[in-house]
């Protein structure tokens, strides 16, 4: 891992067009500003990890009974056409 000491308003540049800038520092937190091209998704680590875990768990589960699941949905009104 590369380690940098940065002060407020200082930045690092990653590759072509990605910048991470320190906007504010505090006792236990720093506020970062990330500039990246649109084709580079940027996510909070814990949010990404939670979606990974949810996807992996959903993909690994045995196939449920579609009829049983659909029965649960009948409690809801039919779907309106897409706006």
């Amino acid at each position, binding site marked *: 891992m590369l380690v940098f000491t940065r002060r407020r308003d200082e930045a690092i540049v990653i590759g072509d067009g990605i910048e991470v800038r320190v906007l504010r520092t505090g006792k236990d937190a720093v506020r970062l500003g990330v500039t990246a091209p*649109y*084709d580079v*998704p*940027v*996510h*909070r680590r814990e*949010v*990404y990890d*939670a*979606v*990974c*875990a*949810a*996807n*992996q*768990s*959903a*993909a690994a*589960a*045995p*196939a*449920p009974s*579609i009829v049983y*699941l*659909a029965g*649960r*949905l009948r*409690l*809801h*009104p039919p*779907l*309106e056409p*897409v706006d």
Partner: protein
Amino acid sequence: MGTPAELEIVTRFGTFTVDTDDIVMFAHGLPGFEQCRRFVLVSAPSLDPFTCLHGIDAPEPSFLTLDPRRALPSYHTPLGDGDRHRLGLTGTETLLWLAVVHIDGEAACVNLKAPIVINPERMVGVQVMVADTAYAADHLLDGS
């Protein structure tokens, strides 16, 4: 354009035949399955009202999916600029929204927090990830 070819896919929800024209590209895969970029969305009477989003690259992840408004009619998650760009939106497209179904013991849930969105006009998709949403990752299917 080449002639579409048929593709047989084997999922835990059944075996289906799809067209190679129906392949949806996820440029970054899905979280947890980043190496799988190509998916097909299977609709079939045996799945209705659900659909199966099936990855055709290894490890071929398969998800049971549902229009999130079937679970919560008022459902709405805004798309950020990055996702709009990655979906190639111009503003007039009708998008396909999918919530991943998962079974947790006796409970059947849908992930309303991280919906999958497909632009059918470009056949590209993304999974939306927002930190500050009121929607649950484990919204009960019959829990309205």
